């Protein structure tokens, strides 16, 4: 059996993302990477918490943050998490078209989220004069939330690349692990956001 045949079986196995050794390696390696990312974001959260009252005479978190936008952003990202679960559900059922559709919705939700975040930053900078350089609080806020935003951007580029690359040839055992770990990444982005909206925004206004 040639390599091509192995990667394109007649019947998709139960867990296509872990059917090959490469897939197993990717799966495990990516989870381990997420373990490391946890520490990365913890360091950023810790820095933010240490500096959140260091507003240097500028606006405080109570004065700055409004909850309406954050609520909408949270809903968008949460929903995108569910849509990527749907995508993986269809991947396991070997329904490539449906998977692409759900991934497409995920991307749209993620893009809207990113747009709103950029709008939010723009408002702070232009209307409140609150920038990366105005205080240690500003530096810490933009770094933490910006790192998360950077992850969203990277995740979007990743998923779009995967969708475009595989649009014509459909699902096989070579790309199934790639789709799967991209969805894991997307969920992890949501995990981080749960803490951001809780610790930064909600706890920032009370």
């Amino acid at each position, binding site marked *: 059996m040639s390599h091509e045949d192995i990667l394109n079986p007649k019947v998709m196995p139960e867990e296509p993302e872990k059917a090959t050794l490469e897939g*197993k*390696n990717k799966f*495990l390696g990516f989870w381990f990477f997420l373990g*490391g*990312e946890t520490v990365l974001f913890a360091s950023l959260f810790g820095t933010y918490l240490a500096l959140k009252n260091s507003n240097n005479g500028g606006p405080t978190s109570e004065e700055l943050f409004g909850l309406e936008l954050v609520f909408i952003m949270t809903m968008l990202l949460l929903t995108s998490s569910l849509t990527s679960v749907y995508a993986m559900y269809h991947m396991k059922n070997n329904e490539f078209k449906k998977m692409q559709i759900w991934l497409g919705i995920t991307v749209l939700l993620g893009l809207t989220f990113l747009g709103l975040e950029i709008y939010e930053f723009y408002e702070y900078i232009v209307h409140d004069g609150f920038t990366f350089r105005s*205080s240690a*609080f500003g530096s810490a806020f933009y770094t933490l939330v910006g790192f998360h935003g950077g992850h969203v951007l990277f995740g979007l580029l*990743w998923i779009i690349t995967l969708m475009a690359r595989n649009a014509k040839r459909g699902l096989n055992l*070579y790309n199934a692990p790639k789709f799967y770990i991209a969805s894991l990444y997307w969920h992890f982005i949501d995990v981080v956001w749960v803490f951001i909206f809780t610790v930064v925004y909600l706890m920032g206004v009370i």
Partner: protein
Amino acid sequence: MSTTIAQNKGFGATLWDYLTTVDHKKIAILYLIGGGFFFLLGGLEAMAIRIQLIKPENDFVSAGFYNELLTMHGTTMIFLAAMPLIFALLNAVVPLQIGARDVAFPFLNSLGFWLFLFGGILLNCSWFLGGAPDAGWTAYAPLSTTQPGHGVDFYVLGLQISGAGTLMGGINFLVTIVNMRAPGMTYMRMPLFTWTAFVTSALILFAFPALTVGLFLMMFDRLFGSGFFDANMGGNSVIWEHLFWIFGHPEVYILILPAFGVFSDVFSTFSKKRLFGYTAMVFATVLIGFLGFMVWAHHMFTVGLGPAANSIFAVATMAIAVPTGIKIFNWLFTLWGGNIKINSAMLWSLAFIPSFTIGGMTGVMLAAAAADYQFHDTYFVVAHFHYVIVGGVVFGIFAGLHYWWPKMFGKILDETLGKITFWTFFIGFHLTFFIQHFLGLMGMPRRYWVYLTDQGLNTGNLISTIGAFFMAIGAIVFLYNVIITSIKGEKVGGDPWDGRTLEWSIPSPPPHYNFKQLPLVRGLDPLWIEKTEGRKGMTPAEPVGDIHMPNPTILPFVMSFGLFIAGFGFIYQVDDASWLSAVFIGMGICLGAMFVRSVKDDHGHHIHKEDLDKGDGL
């Protein structure tokens, strides 16, 4: 075998072969060359430091240059010499010890190496571009954030790039050890070197992200006007110290654990005995890794964290002496009653025990927070960490190189030269650093450019410098040994030491697929088990078949080179905004290579079973 093929090719082809290789054995050689080069560079810096301190009020180097030397000596030795040399051993040995044909992520493995190399080159470019970093290897803020010039910027960007490579290496070895073990190789049958590689990789995974963030914050402060560590903007420099040591303390265990693994394998091989207390050794390794994350603030006792915090971290630090003690005794019991053969690898290992124990003992002294107020920032600390890092890590690397050199290159390093290296280096090491304990207790502060003549420090410093010259001679003899062995050394078979573990069951150097048939592992020291039952080699676990191997690729080199360019852009955009174009070009190259990697399918290739027998040296 792969090297003989390489020798028949032209220089250009060989170079291309190494630039594009994803073979863990060749990457090990690359790490060895890269790490060895930086080790010599760091050694040169150390010699300049010691010559400056040979007599009171010396003016061999200027004060500013002295600061650059001591900063670069520490940074180079930790990040660019010790880490890659450890990775050289991991790459050369771990896949062979677990019976794997390659690592889990050959591409990432190669990317990790090139990131390290380009990060190291970027950092060392600072020498020629207005001065090297000069804020100490710990780069404490606000000194580092307010230091003029670009030195510290090179530190930040260089370490950021090479640190990313290390993180990839860590994940790679974790997955390799979990997923790629040969049939029958359970966790509790893995050689101790593999176990230490596993724990070290886990430590890398959890420790390096803290450094990544710390370096980002420092980069933002220095290059983009943020205020994390700037008290004027409400920042706090203690954050840097925490982030640095949350990484920095596990880092020393990242370095020492693989050395422990080397000694365990060497002791058991050359005592012809199973490692004493294998289970306890594994347990102690895991425990050291675990405790390693709870002790970082012992570097910060004098910062003023308060008595409660200091006490907690003092007790946690002292607790590490327990698993380490378990190890020391297990090594001694492995030797006890063994059929001991003393050669260079064994000499380094035997010398390690007393040397490292002295370092461990001063470690417990330093862990006593109240006493640390006296020791802090004196030569006592310098003596302590050189005893654990040279007496532990460097001895371990030398032992490992002597032990595995035949596996890596098919030739045994010359024994006479090896013994000369050992004795000069060993005597030089104790001469250099033992006296520094007392210099420290007499109050000589570390990192000072000069000392005065009437303070009783003259003789001690003179002795220390003489010792440093001995160490330098030892290192040069080792280099000579490497060259002479590669020219004149005789070829040896696959198992020159009468070894116990899987790497000795295949030819030296191994074919690029390592194992023609994956071996069936039936216990700890699998090769030894087969030998005691009268078999020559391992029982195969599979019939001879086609072997799937990854394809070579230039992309890791390109990605790292892109980040290298972007690094210069980040550093110089503060002077001139047009340097931002270098950032975009560099990042564009890197992301473009990532994109190519992503869209271009790479299925690897098959070696057909008919071709396997050719040149099989067994």
